[in-house]
């Protein structure tokens, strides 16, 4: 059903025809995606350094947040599907060493575009925190 090309569903064909980007286009495309849903941002962070499969993403997100955010499988795969369409992540062609790999699992990694979006979201949040400080809200001191 799925080729190793990173094209997930036939629908990607037309979704992607939309992305004949110029740089300025790309900027506005990033803006369009902000603010990111919480789950999306966390998934991006989870696959930022290592390629991970679905279950590993759930565990990674839980570990990073100290158990505060436990993604349900439905939420996870729905997010993955959407993020693939949006071009935030991609499915990897190469697998880890066979002895570590569960053959039937699919691995995801952050795409260049996803990195740009995550950066933009982080900047947006930082800006927000700065504004909050200026208004007298002081995180960390409470």
């Amino acid at each position, binding site marked *: 059903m*799925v080729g190793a090309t990173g094209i*997930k569903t*036939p629908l990607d064909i037309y979704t992607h025809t939309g992305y004949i980007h110029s740089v300025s286009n790309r900027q506005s495309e990033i803006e369009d995606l902000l603010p990111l849903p919480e789950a999306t941002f966390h998934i991006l962070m989870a696959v930022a350094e290592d390629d991970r*499969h679905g279950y590993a993403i*759930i565990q990674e997100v839980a570990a990073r947040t100290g158990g505060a955010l436990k993604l349900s499988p*439905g*939420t996870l795969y*729905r997010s993955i*599907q959407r993020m693939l369409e949006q071009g935030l992540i991609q499915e990897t062609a190469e697998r880890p060493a066979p002895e570590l790999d569960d053959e*039937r699992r699919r691995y995801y990694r952050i795409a260049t575009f996803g990195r740009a979006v995550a950066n933009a979201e982080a900047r947006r949040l930082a800006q927000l925190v700065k504004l909050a400080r200026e208004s007298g809200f002081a995180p960390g001191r409470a």
Partner: protein
Amino acid sequence: MYRLLLLFYPSSFRAEYGEEMHRDFTRKRQRASGFFALAGLWMAATVDALRNGLAAHCDLLRQDVRYAHRTIRRMPGFAATVVLVAALGIGATTAVFTVADHVLVRPLPYRDSGRLVRMWEARPGYTQMELSPPNYLDWKASASSFEGMAAYAPWSTSLVGQGEPMQVEGANLAADLLPMLGVAPAMGRWFTSDDERSGGVVILGDGLWKSRFGGRPEAIGEKILLDGYPHMIVGVMPPEFSFPQRGSQIWRPLRFAPADLANRNNNYLCAIARRNPDIGLEQARLEMRMISARLAAQYPNENRELGATVANLRDQVSLQSRTLVMALLAAAVCVLLIACTNLANLLLVRALSRQKELAVRASLGAGRERLIRQLLTESLLLAGLGGTLGVAGASAALPLLVRLVPTSLPMANPGIDGRVLLFSVAVTVATGLAFGVLPALRACRHGASQLREGSRSGVGGRKERLRSALVVAEVSLSVALLITSGLLMRALWRLQAIDPGFQQTGVLTLRTALPTPKYEKVFPRETFYRQVLSGVRALPGVQSAGFTSFLPIAMRGGIWAVEIAGQDRRPSENHSASMRFITPGYFPAMGIPLKLGRGVEESDGPTALPVAVVSESFVQRYWPGQNPIGRSFQIASGTRTIVGVAGNVRVRGLEAPSEPQVYLSYKQMRDGTLVWYAPKDLAVRTTVDPTSLIAAIRVIVHEADPHQPVSDVQTLTEIVESNTASRRVQARVLGAFAAIAFLLAAVGIHGLLSFSVSQRTQEIGVRMALGAKPGQILSLILGESGRLAIAGVLLGAGLGYAAGRAMQSILAGLNPGDGPAFATAMALAVMMTLAGSLLPTVRAVRVDPAIAVRAE
């Protein structure tokens, strides 16, 4: 187990991620220990599947809608055609459903209305006659099948004091009628039995209260002048209450004078009863027949052959209205079907041209289900747009269609409400599926194999057959519609050609209903008539003017039994005549010809010999072939001598035969009797535009009596036309439907042939290269359309004949196999086929063999 939960997700999602999700879940389940942990896990999984499954469906929907939106934008012409065609079908169905729902389905707005029945006396010659007060009271006292029985009588009164004097329609109601119907006043109270004794109170309709009393709550308790008498307002009914007819706005208690209670032949009461829950309609009928038989035996003179008719209140819609609405409904469904077949055909063609695109997507892994889902979203979206447009069109067309709802239905005017909207949503979805499913299934059948075959692959024979069948269906339905609308049109013309017995052009009519007791006596009435008539006759352009009790067609009742000394009255025979009191000038004003003797004259006063002018049909019935002048007969307990014979008039309207007519002198009435028959309708014949006199006549009436309202101002032509109004509306609506169907079928033929020509360009090119003449190509293409047309026309003629048979009751005696209607419809169908084939044929003949062959 978990796989069951996965079913909540779209199948493409399931195929993609189901395995992994299942594996994740299995791992978690192995780790969970203890009952509560397991239960919690399952609970979470269920919630997750429900929430995200739905969300995933929505994701897909959004995607499909986005895609459909893009596709539609790429071919706006195609999309506009589809939307418009769908709008026509859905709009027609919605509009007609609104009317049909009102006329046939919707329960009356009363409590438990299924148990309400209407009752009549049955007398020789009449199965539905109003009740006389004593018989009503006897019925009410003896019948045990009913929880309650209550009478009412239509009432029209002049309201003075709140602006211009005004004639208001309403009814006198027995005090227990409203409680029996289960309708409470919006404000104030019901009538009580005290009100029945003392009178002087009135309940207003919402419309009247708002228009004349500004919707003020303080109006309750105020006194108003009705027919010159003070009445206190005790209640206001809710807006949807309209009883006994649409437009009724005022009600007062029903009271009986001692004289009313003595006369069993003074029939003017309508009666409604509520069946006991455990008594069926047949049982109730049986009891009422027995009671009537007893009353007939008890009062053999007055209640001769008395019977009872009992029918459900909801079934008071005449067979004609019912047939009319059913015919319209069938026609609307036809239009919808034609629209659907047409759209299916359009989409089939388009699906063929999209086959490559779909094949590419299928080979890239889109499941069949995914593609069908995508295509259906597209057609549903188009249908939705069409539906919105259609409902808007339907609500615009409703004012025209409302005339098809008989006023006798005690309901407010129909409008587009939740019920109707629900219906149109259902129709829209059904339409979208109907025209979308077939092309979607077809398009997805071939899948990737199409990719190899290249673009020029021929059309499969099966597909062509399906499309041809659709076109034949379209043609046959549109021919059937053409035939039925032709039949209706012919029936209408036939009716309009009937001579009503008077000259309708150039006559203005209006009503001055003289209120009692002010005008109870003959003398004040005479003064009023004299003053009005002399004023009106002096107006420039007026040829003649006269009053009558009731104008023909506008009022069909006023029937009395006739007795003739020396002629035995056979009880089973109909001996009724329509009785009118008239002033001199009435015959010339109406253009009713005098055949013999003279008309009513001023000299026919109270002390002179009581005279009568009768119709030719009257003479025909009692003294066929003899001179009736000087003979006498009894009517309304008085003896009259015939002084003249007038032409027959269609009192009961153009379609129905009328009782013979009897005209009496307005001066020869006794004071206080038959007041209802006092002349009130004025007819004025003019040489100028009749409506230009309205203002002047109002002034004349106002001078004669400043409190006298003028109502029902209309020309005689309007009265006659109102008689055929619903027919004309229906013929027009059905004609419009037929025209739409016709156009759609032509488009269908055109589309099919265009497509088949474009698919066969190569074949045609080869034929021409091999020496085929243009004439042979012509007959090739025309032969194809001709076969379809003949099949469609034959089928349609059969359908049309069946439909004509089914609606025979509204054809005014026209043969359902009427030659001209059939011939016209079939000729039109042939023309339509030719017109639809024109362009494709020209294109086929013009094929350049060199290009066509090289293209391969």
